[in-house]
């Protein structure tokens, strides 16, 4: 372990005690939205009227509390900013105790602020978006639950509590994606998200078990303190399993398939999942578990490779989809892939990854809310080929969406540029072949981003009208536009605020053992990679302009070539999943069922149904089965005898 981990490695009790009312009551951050969910779910119809308003007020309360906590932290010395907040002891098994202790440090408070701020805005937006929905009380309850679970995840000071939040996020996302349960596609999407996430969860769970058995601890400080003494194989195994967990939640290859289907949920949910919660959990996990990955360079390389592959795959999918939300979902995959890549770079990349995560939270939330606003005006049509020329009808949406667009493609001095440049310079900064490969990959990803985002804006807001008959686009109500305006301000200015003068790096780096990394503005315009990034930006926009603005857009998708079709089919991710996991699983199940059902149970089942009608049929067949059962027991006796004699 290198020196910059002294903070974590020195002593498990290094986190200082909470000494102020704000910090020692940090559990309120989680409790407020959790109480909201409970009141709305248990209160029933009585809360229909004021419930959504309460549910909106509570995350705002959490945000205010988080702001106070931030000021408390800033008032402390840089070395004392990790504060441990004991809440209660959950259970102890053996000499192991799962306590609920919260860890308020610069990393967790950054996430808390992002989650509560963007989350609150999405609550406000939902007041307008879901105004007509009969299930809005339930919807707001689930939103609160989602926020609370995500806060548990980032505030946990040990892996078990983190896992609890992890599962809570999985449950809440399942409920929200399947919110319009009467739509079979929504129910299927929810199930898919849940199942794929379970695969990742198993990775995380097994990682925790290995930590506990081999390292003898599950709390962050103790685990990281034990890292230097652990074997390479153990660290590699833990690292890869944690990555599997991160892949599930953050929709990284090969567990990406649920993310595009998850668009079946109401649009605010997409914004919440993609911007502030859920998909960011994987990046959080990798950065938080940084010391483990630093001890396992191979795992780090795998992390970077997965991130790079997902970044490019997401970019391709986003470039081919005509569904505005699915295109944005591909974009999320791509951007999160970039953050995972940055997190895999090690200490040099942590700050850049988290900074990009935060700015991305703002502009991606803005883009999703903008997309929702467009759909609101277009009778919930999501096909961009039927949009066009909406800029004049929806000026506020256009303006805010446009600013988010400029930010995400990395126009200099907007939020996305600062943080993306940080990642690019960090990637090239590691040097060697890896630096070149991954740095170039990010630039390629940036080119794709410029292309697909321009395509989206051109097809939606510019060009000719291609609306269906009877569609009368209109601007959305103020409860929807106001959050978009707030988010667009963040899209413009937040990146500069965080990166310029290394403000965020100075705050975050000591806490997570990141290397202080200086961002020089001039460098971004003089270094070859900075220039390359600008060049691909222009190139991407120009190509999109050529294909989607200069040439008229057809109302039906033209026949594509192999690449386009592959991308439209989400790189055949679903087919691969089905072929590799689903079908063999089904075959195995069927085979065992045949053994159990046909040989032993089949007749009983068949007869069982007819028992009430036909007692004679039962009488005839009854005796045979007990005999078969007895035969099975005899077989069992043989197995028992065999395993007793031949002890393996």
């Amino acid at each position, binding site marked *: 372990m290198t020196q910059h981990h002294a903070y974590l490695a020195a002593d498990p009790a290094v986190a200082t005690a909470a000494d102020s009312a704000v910090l020692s009551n940090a559990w309120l951050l989680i409790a407020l939205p959790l109480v909201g969910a409970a009141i709305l779910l248990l209160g029933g119809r009585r809360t229909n009227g004021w419930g959504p308003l309460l549910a909106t007020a509570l995350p705002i309360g959490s945000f205010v509390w988080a702001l106070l906590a931030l000021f408390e932290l800033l008032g402390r010395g840089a070395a004392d900013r990790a504060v441990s907040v004991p809440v209660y*002891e*959950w*259970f*102890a*098994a*053996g*000499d*192991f105790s799962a306590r609920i202790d919260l860890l308020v440090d610069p990393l967790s408070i950054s996430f808390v602020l992002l989650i509560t701020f963007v989350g609150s805005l999405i609550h406000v937006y939902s007041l307008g978006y879901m105004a007509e929905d009969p299930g809005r009380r339930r919807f707001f309850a689930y939103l609160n639950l989602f926020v609370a679970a995500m806060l548990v995840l980032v505030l946990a000071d040990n892996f078990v509590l983190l*896992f*609890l939040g992890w*599962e809570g996020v999985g*449950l809440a996302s399942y409920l929200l994606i*399947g919110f319009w*349960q*009467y739509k079979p596609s929504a*129910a299927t999407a*929810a*199930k898919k998200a*849940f*199942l794929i996430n*379970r695969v990742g969860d*198993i990775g995380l*769970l*097994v990682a925790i*078990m290995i930590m*506990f*058995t081999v390292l003898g601890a599950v709390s962050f400080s103790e685990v990281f303190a034990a890292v230097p003494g652990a074997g390479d194989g153990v660290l590699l195994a833990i690292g890869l399993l944690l990555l599997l967990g991160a892949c599930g939640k953050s929709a990284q290859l090969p567990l990406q398939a649920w993310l595009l289907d998850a668009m079946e949920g109401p649009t605010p949910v997409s914004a919440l999942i993609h911007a502030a919660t859920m998909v960011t959990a994987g990046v959080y996990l990798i950065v938080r578990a940084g010391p483990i990955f630093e001890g396992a360079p191979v795992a780090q390389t795998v992390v970077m490779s997965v991130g790079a592959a997902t970044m490019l795959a997401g970019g391709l999918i986003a470039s081919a989809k005509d569904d505005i939300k699915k295109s944005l979902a591909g974009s999320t995959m791509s951007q999160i892939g970039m953050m995972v890549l940055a997190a895999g770079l090690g200490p040099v990349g942590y700050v850049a990854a988290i900074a990009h995560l935060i700015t991305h939270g703002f502009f991606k939330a803005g883009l999703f809310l903008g997309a929702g606003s467009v759909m609101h005006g277009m009778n919930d049509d999501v096909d961009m080929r039927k949009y066009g020329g909406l800029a004049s009808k929806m000026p506020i949406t256009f303006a805010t969406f446009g600013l988010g667009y400029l930010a995400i493609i990395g126009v200099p001095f907007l939020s996305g540029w600062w943080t993306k440049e940080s990642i690019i310079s960090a990637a090239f900064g590691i040097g060697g072949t890896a630096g070149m490969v991954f740095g170039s990959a990010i630039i390629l990803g940036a080119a794709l981003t410029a292309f697909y985002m321009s395509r989206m804006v051109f097809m939606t807001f510019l060009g000719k009208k291609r609306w269906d008959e009877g569609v009368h686009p209109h601007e959305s109500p103020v409860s929807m536009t106001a959050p978009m305006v707030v988010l667009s301000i963040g899209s413009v200015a937040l990146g500069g605020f965080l990166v310029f003068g290394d403000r965020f790096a100075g705050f975050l780096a000591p806490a997570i053992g990141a290397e202080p990394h200086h961002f020089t503005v001039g460098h971004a315009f003089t270094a070859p990679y900075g220039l390359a990034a600008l060049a691909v930006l222009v190139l991407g926009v120009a190509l999109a302009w050529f294909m989607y603005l200069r040439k008229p857009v057809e109302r039906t998708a033209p026949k594509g070539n192999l690449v386009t079709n592959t991308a439209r089919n989400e790189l055949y991710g679903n087919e691969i999943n089905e072929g590799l996991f689903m079908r063999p699983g089904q075959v*195995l*199940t069927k085979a*065992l*069922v045949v053994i*159990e*059902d046909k040989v*032993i*149970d089949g007749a*009983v089942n068949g007869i*069982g149904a007819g*028992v*009430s009608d036909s*007692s004679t049929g*039962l*009488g005839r067949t*009854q005796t045979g*089965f*007990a005999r*078969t*059962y*007895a035969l*099975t*027991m005899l*077989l*069992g*006796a043989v*197995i*028992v*005898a065999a*395993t*007793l*004699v031949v*002890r393996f």
Partner: protein
Amino acid sequence: MIPLNLADGAPPALHGVTEAPPTLDWWLLAPFLVLFGAGVLAVLFEAFWPKGSRRTLQIALAATALLVTFVLLVLQVEAVGDGTTVGNGVLAVDRTVLFFQGTITVLALVSLMLIAERRDGRDAFSAQAATVPGSEEERTHILAGSQHTEVYPLVLFAVLGMLMFPASNDFLVMFIALEVMSLPLYLLCGLARRRRLFSQEAAVKYFLLGAFSSAFFLFGIAMVYGYAGSVNFGVIRGAVESGGAEIFQGGNGEPLLLMGVGLVAIGLLFKVGAVPFHNWKPDVYQGAPTPITALMASCTLVAAFGALLRVFFVPFGTSAAIWEPMLWTVAILTMVVAAIVAVTQRDIKRLLAYSSVVHAGFILTAVVAGSVEGLAGAMFYLAAYGFTTLGAFAVVTLVRTRDGGQELGDLDKWAGLGRRSPGLALALSLFLLAFAGIPLTSGFIGKFAVFEAAVSAGATPLVVVGVLSSAVTAYFYVRIIVVMFFRDSEGEGPTVARAGVLTGGVITVGVAATLALGIFPGPVLDHLVPSGEPGQEPTAVMVDQVTEDPVDE
């Protein structure tokens, strides 16, 4: 019991043979005596008490007996200290045994609430079990309002057997306990009011297979006796350590021990329902009256596992190398086969039966651990699972077909239940999530405890299988939740009977226990189940043999 005189000449030092009359600690025997006395009294009531008020009296007697038993058990906790044996060392009384007995008593009380529940004046039991199903005679009895109040004494005797089973310190007593527990259950299984042939078929199957497994068990006892020269657990333990009874000092006793361990194991594994001795479970759980299924799924499982843990940890505790590979195999088979087969089950009771089989597999991983931690994990798991499964079966009794009013097991027809009775569906969802081991439910803590014990005992591959298996089970539990909440009912859905005070009480207890043990498991983990050093031998907390001083008078 009097061991055979194996060697000529001077009789060997025989355990338990004394000329003095046995000294019995009546206080420690009181829980058994109360239940036994109540059972006998209940039989007399059946014979002599007038019909009209008999049912109320029987319920009151059974409930009082169980309550008094529970209070006695609690009072004994402080008194037993490190544990002791009673009745010439045939029964063990220590905190582990008392925990099992207390759990069984409470679960039996809750089951009794389900058993006593009546709807439209009819309970879940046949009006007159001796009549031919569908006959005129049966109709007459139904119209006359006949009822089987014999159910209550039968339950009392079964619970008596269950209390003795995990407390046995002697193989013959254990066998008697097994039969005292099982025989009433065979009868109770055949008493369903509806689908009577189905119920009787289940009872006969259960009986035949149970007799088969008892034969294995008994034959195993004979082998162990041959090997150790005694049926007392403490003596057997000593004999296993020293390589068998005196005549085996040459070192050729192992085949007898192997046969003994294997055959006894088969008998016990049948009772807990591990694969491949599980076949009876789905049929019996489905056919039996649901309140009886609830009793079997909770109390019988606890008792059977209590006995299994005792047998493997005490008499066979020093021969773990012999039986561990066997239990590994059985545990893996159980977790894998049952989980996969359960995926395609369509009937809720069959599904819960397979679920019970999978859970037995999970608990077996704790037996393989062979440590105090494993014992504690299994104890917590069993208590947690008992309450959850009671609640789940209570829900099953409420969902009924629209026309006949009988229970509706077919899960496909449960679609839309979440909209019609959200409270009930929510409760069932909680139980299912607990079965799946989702955090904040008791199921998670239980699973964590047993898996943690298995991992620290070096059985990591077993735990990997367990985690994978529980992922599969999560699929079908969640599928039920999806059916209830996210699918529209085709045509007429099920009716949901209004939960009476008793059934409602059972569901409430189930929900409360599932949540309480999931969120605040501390008190139970810290004070009720044993906590030992890592890797500590279970005999540290399980008493085997106490040299009872003959009373000098």
